[in-house]
């Protein structure tokens, strides 16, 4: 953690905490009703999104998944704009046309959440063709789950990236489940990293509940990409604190599993302990952020609830630039 300045630590904590509270609050609001569609929460996996994106800036691109809120916040998307989008409001980040599974903000280098599992990696590979040609040492990264790691599009993207030696990183988040199916069943290989390594790129594994472990592993891969060393894969073992989507009865999980994970594998708890033990930050610093974040989320929910729905006339706009 030495490498990280105090500001960087505070920034990372703020982002992780923002994701956590965003999702905890959504879980409540969705159960109250008022939020359309179905929503996949990222709580529990914050260290992955933030640990990876800590190495990226707006000129770098990421491609996300159906569980994209964390990636969006970590990459710098406006939290209130996101909340409004999830509520389906006219002034949401995507004018209410996308929703939870389709939040994008190209200005922040966020190429979009993606409701098609495995849809993102080919896009990140293509964005890397662009950033390399534009030649400013910019890189791209894709996020894929354990379940998504079995999708053919992801395998093709890895091979293409290796063939073209592109500046891109394949981030795999093993949260143990693909909907109702365990990763141990659906991923036939020993793990995702060894399978990725077989494609001919460096691949490593780290604890996705430890921000610093993520930060270090992702840093090595992203640095390699920036320096022209080609693509890499990083696999992070993590856990989701909620069901596959809000409303999932989770019959596939042992009764105490989530409680146990919240107890032992909470990346925010871990971070707090580590930075305090290492005398990098004081508890008060973090408590102050907790306060601000809670206010931000309250604020964003209030604004989202107060905001107007899209004009029905907009159902046919934005299909083409011109037609």
């Amino acid at each position, binding site marked *: 953690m030495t490498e990280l300045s105090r500001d960087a630590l505070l920034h990372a904590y703020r982002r992780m905490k923002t994701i956590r509270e965003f999702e905890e609050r959504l879980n409540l609001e969705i159960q109250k009703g008022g939020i359309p569609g179905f929503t996949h929460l990222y709580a529990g996996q914050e260290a992955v999104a933030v640990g990876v994106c800590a190495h990226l800036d707006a000129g770098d691109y990421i491609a996300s998944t159906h569980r994209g809120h964390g990636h969006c916040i970590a990459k710098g998307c406006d939290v209130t704009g996101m909340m409004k989008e999830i509520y389906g409001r006219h002034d949401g980040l995507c004018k209410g046309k996308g929703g939870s599974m389709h939040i994008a903000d190209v200005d922040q280098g966020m190429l979009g959440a993606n409701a098609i599992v495995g849809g993102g990696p080919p896009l990140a590979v293509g964005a890397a063709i662009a950033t390399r040609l534009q030649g400013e040492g910019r890189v791209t990264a894709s996020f894929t789950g354990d379940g998504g790691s079995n999708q053919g599009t992801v395998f093709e993207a890895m091979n293409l990236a290796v063939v073209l030696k592109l500046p891109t990183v394949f981030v795999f988040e093993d949260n143990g*489940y693909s909907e109702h199916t365990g990763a141990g069943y659906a991923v036939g290989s020993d793990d995702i990293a060894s399978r990725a390594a077989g494609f001919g790129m460096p691949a490593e594994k780290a604890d996705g509940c430890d921000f610093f472990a993520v930060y270090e592993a992702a840093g090595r891969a992203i640095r390699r990409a920036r320096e022209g060393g080609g693509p890499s894969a990083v696999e992070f073992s993590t856990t989701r604190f909620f069901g596959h989507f809000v409303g999932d009865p989770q019959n596939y999980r042992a009764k105490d599993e989530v409680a146990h994970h919240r107890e032992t594998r909470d990346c925010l708890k871990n971070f707090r302990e580590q930075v305090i033990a290492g005398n990098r930050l004081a508890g008060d610093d973090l408590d102050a952020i907790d306060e601000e974040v809670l206010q931000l989320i309250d604020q964003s929910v209030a604004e989202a609830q107060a905001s107007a729905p899209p004009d029905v006339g907009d159902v046919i706009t934005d299909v083409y630039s011109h037609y």
Partner: protein
Amino acid sequence: MSIKSYREALNEALFEEMRRDPSVIVLGEDVSGGAGGTSGTRDAAGGIFGVTKGLIGEFGDERVIDTPISESAIIGAGAGAAAAGLRPVAELMFADFVGVCLDQIYNQAAKFRYMFGGKMQCPLVIRTAMGAGMNMGAQHSQTIYPMLTAVPGLKIVVPSNAADAKGLLKTAIRDDDPVVFFEHKALYNKKGEVPDGDHAIPFGEADMPREGDDCTVVAIGRMVPFSEKAIDSLADQGISCDLVDPRTVSPLDTDLIFESLEHTGRLVVVDESPPRCSLASDIAGIVASEAFGSLRGPIRLVTAPHAPVPFARELERAYVPGPDRIAQAILEAVKG
């Protein structure tokens, strides 16, 4: 007869067919669920819409097969198993996912019989959930069936109610050709009278849930109940319509449509899909070429707009053709 939901009717058809014929298997993502989970419970899902619930308990994991997220492998494995003598029912969780497995559907399964000179058959059923109405957004709400209706070699089924869901799924499983079976996700909870026991509905025979004199309405899937609402709402204006539910869009029962048109002279076609190369324009085109003489006025097409499916409630509601728009089109057809 008993009252069952569309979901229950489908589930019953699967149980009955798997009991009847040991060569029937089911495969797909979470068709049982719980494999590799920490609770040890299988059947944790029974399909994310619950249609395959309970099957693994009776038929075991050699006939009820959970798969990774690998649609090309799922559909391809179904096609290969069918060519090797089984009658697989492969679940494509959402019809929108046809994008990651289309080749195995349309270049493989659909073409085996023809390419190989009639010597190979592929009795594969692909069950898939389609349609808008649940704010699932642009990639989880499409109808898709027009794309596959265009494919020679496939049979395309779009049940609009619980009884047809059961009767058509049984026929699909017994059929020797590949069948794509489109279940509308907004209909899963819809209840209706369902014949008990063996009830198989032949393909290519349309149903006529409403009969009348002023206009012929052809509607598909969820548009059938919406059209019933629309037609019933016009009764007090003294307007009555034939409502044709094709049930299978390939093969398509044009006879009943033409017959009805001879009587009414007016046609409204209702399709939840966007307009271009839709079932709406397809049926209209067939009528304009084969039954032109019966037409006493322009054909009215009621479809979604030429746009992806939006997320927000208000936008999706405006997107999906509803009873009001259908009634409006009938009025125009009758008056116009």
